[in-house]
């Protein structure tokens, strides 16, 4: 569906996008993740044929975005970061206008507009002036505009920015439902959002794609080992000796809080679930166990580790 090869974009002396390549197949829901100013929007603007790349090529559905831009745009539903709605139009009127502009036939018009209004929860706002709508509803109208011509590809730039938590969840659900029959690319700097809807994440930082894959696999790539936390009724040195004797252990840290329970953090040198092994060892030593967990790093940790220059080194 989408083939991006060695995409580079210069703004004067600034390299906003730096040799980014990826492929997205039909039906995928892909999240672009990156801090503000990382090059997400620029990449999306190039994908939507709004802006040309300085170097590299983008093909969408086999059409080059530069030379066959109209073909690309016909297959595309795009929600830019600033929602492009005319404030002097009514919601329904705007969607009719946009649908016609994007090639919906007069015969199909009513049905398509109706479907878009319904899907984006704008049915009760159809007669309202767009200028009088709240930010959340404007965002929904923008989404309705993106889907009104039923395009196979949706590109959504920060679709939930400026929304309150309830609206965010609603938009997220909408995107998930759209993802069942469309290819969706969305960008965000909010991790939970991408994690919730996207089956694949591309992390962009300073113009470069620094990670690409399902969230779980990115975690594995980034995580050097795994961690198990236990709370056991034992003397600290007894617990430490027990845990240190396990296979693949890198380090053991025991925290004796004074009572007869003590907590320990065991770091292993591989990415694997070591909880069973730890549990078995404790049971074999006949000790009481009241907690055994393996905290997995969230995408948030990964993101911060990858994009925070101080931690990154």
């Amino acid at each position, binding site marked *: 569906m989408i083939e991006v090869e060695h995409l580079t974009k210069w703004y004067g002396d600034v390299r906003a996008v730096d040799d980014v390549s990826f492929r997205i197949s039909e039906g995928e829901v892909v999240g672009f993740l990156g801090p503000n100013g990382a090059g997400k929007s620029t990449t999306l603007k190039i994908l939507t044929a*709004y802006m*040309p790349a300085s170097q590299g090529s983008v093909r969408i559905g086999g059409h080059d975005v530069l030379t066959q831009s109209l073909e690309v*745009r016909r297959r595309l539903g*795009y929600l*830019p970061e600033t929602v*492009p709605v005319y404030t*002097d139009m009514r919601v329904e009127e705007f969607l009719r206008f946009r649908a016609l*502009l994007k*090639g919906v036939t007069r015969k199909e018009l009513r049905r398509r507009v109706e479907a878009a209004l319904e899907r984006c929860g704008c049915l009760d706002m159809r007669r309202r002036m767009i200028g009088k709508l709240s930010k959340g509803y404007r965002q929904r109208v923008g989404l309705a505009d993106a889907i009104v011509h039923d395009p196979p590809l949706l590109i959504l730039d920060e679709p939930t920015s400026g929304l309150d938590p309830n609206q965010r969840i609603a938009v997220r659900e909408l995107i998930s439902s759209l993802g069942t029959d469309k290819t969706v690319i969305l960008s965000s700097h909010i991790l939970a959002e991408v994690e919730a809807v996207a089956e694949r994440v591309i992390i962009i930082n300073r113009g470069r794609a620094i990670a690409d894959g399902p969230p779980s696999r990115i975690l594995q790539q980034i995580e050097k080992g795994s961690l198990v936390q236990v709370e056991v009724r034992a003397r600290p040195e007894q617990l430490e000796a027990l845990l240190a004797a396990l296979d693949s252990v890198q380090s053991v840290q025991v925290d004796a809080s004074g009572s007869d329970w003590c907590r320990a953090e065991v770091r292993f040198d591989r990415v694997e679930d070591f909880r069973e092994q730890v549990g078995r060892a404790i049971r074999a030593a006949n000790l009481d166990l009241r907690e055994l967990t393996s905290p997995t790093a969230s995408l948030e940790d990964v993101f911060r580790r990858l994009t925070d220059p101080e931690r990154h080194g």
Partner: protein
Amino acid sequence: MTGLRALLILAGREIESYFLQPLMYLVLAVFLALNGLAFSYSLVDMQGNVDATVRSFLGGSILFWINILFVPPLLTMRLIAEERRTGTMEGLMTAPVTDLVVVLAKFIGAYSFYLALWAPSVVYLLVMKSYGALPDTGVLASSYLGVLLLGALLIAIGLLASAVSPNQIVAAILGVVFNQALFWVPMLSLKMPHGTVRTTLEHLSILFHFDNSFSKGVLDSGIIAVYVIAIAISLFLAVRAVESRRWT
């Protein structure tokens, strides 16, 4: 989708948007007031000479020139600059329409409103007719042709100004300044010795175009060609200006 279909849809929206802006009703009111005054003064000044009245009303009075030089930039200032500022241009330029269609649609929209501004002036002529005073058809037709051609040119220039400006205020100022230059610079020829420069400037003077051709009922294909070419160049440059925003 054919370009023509997109053009009609976009132009329809453009025309509609004029009637949704309060400012445009103010422009309409002021234009009609000035135009009415221009007609009354012309009628009084020319003491019943209908052809002279038409000449004065369409090209020979100060009020005519104020109206025609200042109103088009007000009609066009918003067209591209405002869409770019509010971000709606991005929606337009990622829809399956070419930049040429976008620019033409905006031109058609503004020009339609310009025609709407002039349409009531036909009533004045009907009033004259009801008094049995009929102007020469040739003078009338060519004077209106002048109004239509000059209007189209000034709107194309205003559209270009809007395409290169960061906001509508700058676009309006740019349009007004350019129109003033278009009117006054060729006037320098009056102070010049006879020669090529003077002749060239005279050929470029929109005032002289009316004095020597449109207002006389004499059609000069050279002058008409100059207008058509200038309109085409302005629109072409506007398309390039819209495109160029993609490259930055």
